[in-house]
């Protein structure tokens, strides 16, 4: 098998170069020249991989707009060519890459999307459902493998909910609100709960202590407001599935 041809071909596609030696090994078809034949494969590679990145990071794309998303996407592809068998998972390093590019707000959106898809593809575990009183008794160990707490300086949840909208539909929407979120898996679907700041703090302590009474005790030592009935309801909605 022609290893030399295959290596040259891979270089020509991923590094965007035309290689005269490669052209001596191949023959274009139809009305194509060698350069155009290579461009068919190069354009297809670029389109497939950008499409995969775009479908994994739809809200990030919406936030950045086409020009910035494609420009950053091209840089990302150059730095992280795919070595995966399944393109569905392409872009795992994209949030980190955006952070390195000083795209602070886009980082939060991309990080949210990465975690959403991670949960989407995670296994549904069969969980016993507890009563709130059992949780408060403190002798239950939670399973927090399938949940993420996220805090962002912009409303990433609202962006996510509108990710399929056309750009002009977003003009009147305000995404500037800081949000605290919890993402978890519930009956095969990814649930997103928007929390108040105090509820988020208590949720963080629960994740840290893995024990509800201890977390409440730690929370009481902080100078934070009491949780409202609505806050408690949200917290238990999550805990009862964890």
């Amino acid at each position, binding site marked *: 098998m*022609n290893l030399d041809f*295959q290596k040259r071909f*891979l270089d020509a596609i991923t590094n965007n170069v035309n290689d005269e030696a490669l052209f001596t090994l191949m023959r*274009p078809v*139809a009305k194509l020249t060698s350069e155009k034949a290579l461009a068919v*494969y190069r354009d297809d590679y670029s389109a497939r991989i950008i499409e995969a990145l775009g479908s994994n990071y739809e809200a990030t794309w919406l936030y950045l707009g086409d020009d910035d998303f494609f420009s950053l996407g091209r840089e990302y592809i150059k730095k992280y060519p*795919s070595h*995966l068998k399944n*393109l569905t998972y392409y872009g795992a390093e994209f949030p980190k890459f955006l952070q390195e590019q000083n795209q602070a707000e886009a980082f939060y959106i991309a990080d949210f999307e990465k975690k959403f898809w991670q*949960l989407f593809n995670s296994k549904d575990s069969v969980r016993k459902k507890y009563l709130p009183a059992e949780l408060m008794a403190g002798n239950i160990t939670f399973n927090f493998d399938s949940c993420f707490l996220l805090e962002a300086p912009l409303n990433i949840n609202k962006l996510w909910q509108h990710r399929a909208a056309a750009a002009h539909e977003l003009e009147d929407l305000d995404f500037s609100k800081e949000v605290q979120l919890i993402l978890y898996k519930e009956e095969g679907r990814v649930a997103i709960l928007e929390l108040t700041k105090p509820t988020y703090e208590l949720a963080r302590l629960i994740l840290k202590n893995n024990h509800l009474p201890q977390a409440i005790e730690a929370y009481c030592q902080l100078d934070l407001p009491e949780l409202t009935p609505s806050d408690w309801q949200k917290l238990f909605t999550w805990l009862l599935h964890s």
Partner: protein
Amino acid sequence: MIGVGLRHIHFPYLETKPQTTVDWFEGITENFFDTEGRPLKMLEAIRRDYPVGLHGVSLSIGSAEELDFEYLKKTKVLYERIKPAVISDHLCWTGHKNRNLHNLLPLSYNQATLNYLVPRLQTVQEFYNREICIENLSAYLDMRDSDMTEWDFLRELAKKSGCKILLDINNIYVNSQNHQFDPYKYLDAIPDHLVGEMHLAGFTDMGDFLFDTHSRPVFPDVWKLFQHKIKNIKKTPVLIEWDEDIPEFSVLEAEAQKAREIRGPL
């Protein structure tokens, strides 16, 4: 059996368990790797009601690198779980270990490539403990060291390795226009008993060449080629592929119905 590709966009519709007229579904093998979530649940749900085929895009049988046994193991685990009626991949290479182009890249059609591929395919089939179908692809370049036609190469590969052929009629048509050959000669050169499955899809005319986009209905000349080949092998599983600009499920069902009518009663 006339089937359609199982695509993510149709999951919400298929979850309602509609009465469909399709006989089977084919999923992309790699889409069900590394997931325990909804895609796999959907595949299992479909499998309970229909025969399922699994069609790979990353075996890379023609890669100059060694076979990827991690990939083969993952595939085998999925096969054992789903028990597909038919398994398949392509006559191509897709990349190397550190770079995958996610495209189906052409090979040289000559004795040296045949000698290279036959034992590799035999290893794959021994590993899976079953026969695999290998699909002809659309290519936009030829290799200068090819000295066999694609159809002679494919036929010899199947005969020598024991694999079956997944005959993609659209790819044959696209290549016949781009590479200038008679598509009927291709079809007639493939013995009926070697055909394990057939694919039908649409292409896009790019002006300088035809491009296999799977984004359109099946082209009239492709239906004619299909009619020519299916007449003696009516029991062969046939699949309508549509991967870009995917329409509503009913459009796929209508294409499948057309294939059924052209095939005629079994």
